[in-house]
């Protein structure tokens, strides 16, 4: 059975009116050569998935790529816990989109309000319509605030998630700085699956590293809805016991039910916990644009995809990437994995636009580095091979975690950040 899929969409030329409204591509700087484009792809979301897809579509094929992203610059979730620990600044985790602009990606700083899969166009808040042959949705996650009673919009001003790097990262850092010595920082972890499995445990270590040095009588309370640490468990337990004894307290099976914002109190099933700084990471689902487009066909939370092409199983012509996708077995929701989704989708979309066979045996892999002190890091890694019988990616042989935290892996982690940001943003 040879895998061939022909793109049936018509390749319409950009309307003159639209062409005038989008940023002009710098054709002289493209690396894909001249000639007519093989098709138009609109990418929604410029995070690890979307930016990577945009870059690789330009690099690998003469594709007319428009990237719609609301933010002016990329701010990385990975390394953002180092900002909370006071070891890095917001500038260290912010990268401009100018590298993509130079590759001829037409970037539009705007909000997508709808995707019309019938008309094959992406609609922006200002009324603009962007026609596409294929669309990529890499929207990230939205929080299910309604799952936590009392977490009203007003309460969210004080009780932060900081689970999307940006203004909340800095705001949470300010709360930690303002907290008196002897105070309690409580972090609630939602039930898996959630974005960045080791992230909460890294965050606890980073905040503890700050307390240890500057506010040694303070506590970190880790309230986990899950029965155990979700990633690098033995390593985090060892670090907590050896580096942060008396600072970090880990409580499994503690699902947050409600908050009392006025009292800064987390209400758990059997217990109320009052904190000086309460940091709530609510459960997630694929972001709103995925819901309104009808893409959340998995448990009304996640996007189902055909893993050979990353095309939605609900809406033809729309491909989905990153954390919003229902993960394959043992596949984490991580920036690294979203980047891998992006390249895999770019390769498939180019083949589809050209009417040529798609790769029947794709591979993706993951590496997540977590800082446990200002310098020392632990990792988890895995390789995922496509399984033709079960039509999904499966963890391949190998994979594993660090033998121990090390400063050498700390250098690798920062090198990883530099290289993946460069890979996705052509910076």
């Amino acid at each position, binding site marked *: *059975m*040879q*895998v061939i899929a022909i793109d049936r969409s018509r390749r319409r030329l950009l309307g003159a009116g639209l062409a005038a409204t989008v940023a002009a591509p710098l054709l002289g700087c493209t690396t894909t050569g001249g000639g007519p484009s093989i098709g138009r792809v609109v990418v929604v979301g410029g995070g690890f998935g979307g930016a990577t897809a945009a870059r*690789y579509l330009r*690099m*690998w094929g003469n594709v007319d790529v428009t990237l719609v992203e609301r933010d002016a610059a990329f701010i990385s979730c990975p390394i953002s816990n180092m900002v909370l620990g006071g070891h890095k600044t917001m500038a260290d985790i912010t990268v401009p989109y100018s590298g993509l602009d130079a590759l001829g990606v037409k970037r539009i700083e705007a909000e997508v309000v709808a995707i019309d899969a019938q008309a094959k166009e992406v609609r922006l808040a200002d009324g603009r319509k962007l026609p596409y042959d294929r669309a990529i949705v890499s929207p990230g996650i939205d929080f299910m605030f309604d799952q936590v009673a009392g977490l009203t919009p007003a309460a969210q001003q004080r009780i932060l998630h900081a689970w999307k790097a940006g203004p909340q990262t800095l705001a949470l850092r300010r709360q930690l700085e303002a907290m008196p010595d002897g105070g309690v920082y409580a972090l609630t972890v939602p039930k898996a699956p959630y974005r960045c499995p080791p992230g909460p445990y890294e965050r606890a270590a980073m905040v503890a590293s700050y307390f240890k040095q500057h506010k040694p009588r303070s506590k970190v309370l880790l309230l986990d809805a899950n029965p155990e640490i979700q990633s690098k468990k033995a390593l985090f337990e060892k670090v907590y016991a050896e580096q942060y004894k008396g600072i970090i307290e880990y409580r499994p099976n503690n699902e947050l039910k409600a908050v009392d914002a006025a009292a800064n109190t987390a209400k758990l099933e059997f217990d109320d916990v009052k904190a000086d700084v309460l940091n709530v990471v609510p459960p997630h689902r694929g972001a709103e644009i995925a819901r309104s487009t009808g893409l959340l066909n998995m448990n009304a939370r996640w996007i189902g995809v055909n893993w050979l092409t990353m095309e939605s199983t609900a809406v033809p012509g729309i491909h989905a990437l990153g954390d919003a996708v229902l993960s394959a077995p043992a596949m984490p929701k991580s920036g*690294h994995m979203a*980047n*891998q989704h992006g*390249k*895999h989708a770019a*390769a498939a979309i180019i*083949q589809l636009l050209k009417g*040529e*066979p798609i*790769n*029947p*045996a*794709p*591979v*993706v*892999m993951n*590496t997540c580095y977590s800082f446990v002190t200002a310098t020392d890091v632990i*990792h988890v*890694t*895995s*390789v*995922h*091979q496509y399984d033709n019988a079960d039509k999904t990616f499966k963890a*391949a*042989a*190998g*994979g*594993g975690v*660090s033998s121990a935290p*090390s400063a*050498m*892996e700390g*250098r*690798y982690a*920062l*090198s*990883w950040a*530099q*290289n*993946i940001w*460069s*890979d996705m943003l*052509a910076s």
Partner: protein
Amino acid sequence: MIHLPRTAIAGLLVWAGVAHAQDANLGRNLAATCANCHGTNGQARGDTVPALAGMPAERLMSTFNAYKTGALPATIMHQIAKGYTDEQVKAIAAYFAVQVKK
């Protein structure tokens, strides 16, 4: 001679046909999975990890294999190397070997 069931032979033939059609992009796609740490097309940023662009194919394959067997100690590559087949490593090595290091 090894006797395979007819269905297995048919499967191999189809597989070979598909793989052949993919030859142009196979190495490129696989090598792209390395870029997160080793740079786009093997052009690594910084001097912490080795650039793979321009590395002779034999050297990349033997290094990869040494990670796989444990002969070469590593923090992470011994775990990653086991996840790729020898054929995949060969395609990756061929792709990086012809990239010109910048």
